[in-house]
């Protein structure tokens, strides 16, 4: 599946603008998300990170272009974007609390099934689901309602749902926020494992996490791209230090 798209599995964003009644939450962003690396998107609150992802996933209207697999994401509806292979998580993990972990993943698997097959009850789970359960380490909790999961486990379940969807592009919105140190490390390792062959964009505030796992960093400020580069390059960038990294110590304390 990936092979046929090889070389096209990146998102190229040109002049993306999101306008909230005159307030430009995102103002003319040019960005490219390449395959196979953990791309971190950072910036102070209100920098437009989440809005950027919202626009790319059809949640808010944006102008400009965002090309992926020869389609313009900005002209598509959310569920069509997902069916093209772009998935996302939300700041507050949203899982279906009344359904079990297995059912949650199985619903994500529905993207691969024909609509009419849904009138049947589940007789077996697909290998994708079994595999995702292993990867996110929730196999033992498969039959439990997702409502009882701990914060970190919910985030992993969301990542698992993206795996089951076979999302080639994943936008992860503050996935490690509120996690313990061990959970963060496990999350980082998980992302490292699944990164090859995928385009993974992580919105983050946690600088330590960023230093440990980022392959590439884009800094946003006031709706625009402030700087791009490797962790070292970003850390050395004086403008970035001024607007963002300077405050990073406080951010970490807050977290």
């Amino acid at each position, binding site marked *: 599946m990936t092979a046929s798209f090889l070389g096209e599995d990146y998102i190229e964003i040109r002049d993306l603008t999101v306008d909230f009644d005159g307030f430009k939450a995102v103002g003319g962003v040019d960005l490219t998300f390449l395959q196979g690396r953990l791309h971190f998107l950072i910036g102070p609150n209100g920098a437009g990170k989440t809005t950027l992802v919202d626009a790319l996933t059809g949640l808010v209207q944006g102008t400009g272009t965002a090309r992926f697999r020869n389609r313009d994401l900005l002209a598509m*509806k959310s569920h069509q974007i997902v069916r093209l292979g772009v998935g996302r998580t939300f700041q507050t993990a949203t899982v279906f609390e009344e359904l079990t972990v297995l059912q949650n993943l199985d619903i994500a698997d529905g993207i691969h099934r024909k609509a009419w097959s849904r009138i049947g009850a589940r007789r077996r789970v697909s290998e994708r689901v*079994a595999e995702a359960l292993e990867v996110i380490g929730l196999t033992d909790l498969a039959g439990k309602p997702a409502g009882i999961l701990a914060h970190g486990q919910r985030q992993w379940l969301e990542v698992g749902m993206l795996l089951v*969807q076979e999302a080639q592009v994943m936008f992860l919105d503050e996935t490690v926020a509120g996690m313990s140190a061990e959970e963060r490390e496990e999350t980082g390792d998980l992302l490292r494992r699944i990164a090859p062959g995928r385009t993974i964009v992580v919105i983050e505030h946690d600088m330590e996490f960023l230093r440990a796992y980022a392959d590439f960093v884009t800094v946003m400020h006031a709706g625009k791209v402030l700087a791009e580069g490797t962790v070292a390059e970003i850390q050395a960038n004086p403008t970035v230090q001024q607007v963002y990294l300077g405050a990073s110590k406080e951010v970490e304390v807050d977290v």
Partner: protein
Amino acid sequence: MTTDSGAISDVAETSTPMSRAWRDPRFSPANLFRSYGGLIAIALLAYALLVWAPGELTPFRLGNLGKYCCWAIAAVGIGLAWGRGGMLVMGQGVFFGLGGYIMAMHMKLEATGPGEVPDFMSLYGDGTMPFWWEPFRNGAFTMVAIIVLPALISFLLGYAILKRGVKGAYFAILTQALAVAFSTLLIATIKQTGGFNGLNSFSSFFGQKLNKSTKQDIYLMAAGALIICLLIVWQLYRSRFGELLVATRDAEARVRFLGYDPANTKLIAFVLAAVMASVGGALFTPLVGIISPSNVDAAASIMLLAGVALGGRSTLMGPALGAIAVGYGQSTLSETYPTSWTYFQGALFIVVMLFLPGGLASLWTKLKGLMPTRSPLDRRPVSAALAVGAEAAK
């Protein structure tokens, strides 16, 4: 994160033996009961309605029970749309009425001699029959129309409303407005639909004279239709569609990001609910002998909701049993204390919604200790509840 295997391919290569409990949940006793326990309940109800009641009840009481069954059929649909789908359908009287009036038109034409027009048309109008009455002379056409017409209308309406992301309270208000408009329209068209009086004085039902044994047959049809609707809903609730519907109810935005168009899922539930209401209405007319705007207006639609709320909206049996109970309560209370029924119905909404939003069925599960703290409906994420209409802001 228990595994350090890391290699995804490892897992993929192992063929999945269906040995571990989660891989094949069919055979765990709890799941077996969850899946097939519903069938036992349906079978018990089927026995009570189809075997016990005809032998024990007087024809009058049996007729009443048939009437409650008709409401229960509509209630099962409401349970599907509202309980599982999160769409508070406050205008099901419209579809109930659609079925009821279609049946009534056929029976009215049966009671009218060939070449004649129904009595009220000469009484209030100029004695000509509107052209659209004509096809309902045909019994087969009538039966098809009872299913197809509400399906078509609810599809068009649901498509318009749901695709635009109208939900929550907005959806509820629009559907109730529909009921108001429908009953107003009926009252305004006295020459075509009998207006405020509705349609009545029937003599036969698909060729059978409306005597005691025909009425018992119609009762059996109503009870049987209820059982069939319950079986349909039972299968839907245990299917992947049922899971998707619950997921859509609880976190619609999330479902969209799994690649589904939530409007389609809800549309199916809405259309099914409409068809069930129509079937209920179609059997209501011959059982009661009249269908009038007061059976289908906003107040009637709300009464249908009362039973669903009381029984437990998201459960399999709750809506049906609740509707039968509310129907029985209404008959008994309004016989003895004519005015108190309205108070009772009002109090029912207040008490159930305030203290027992899961209905009486949730009381049962609470007592059983399966739900130790709160009812399942309370556990809905706050964000989902607050997201009412937020979608419309898009």
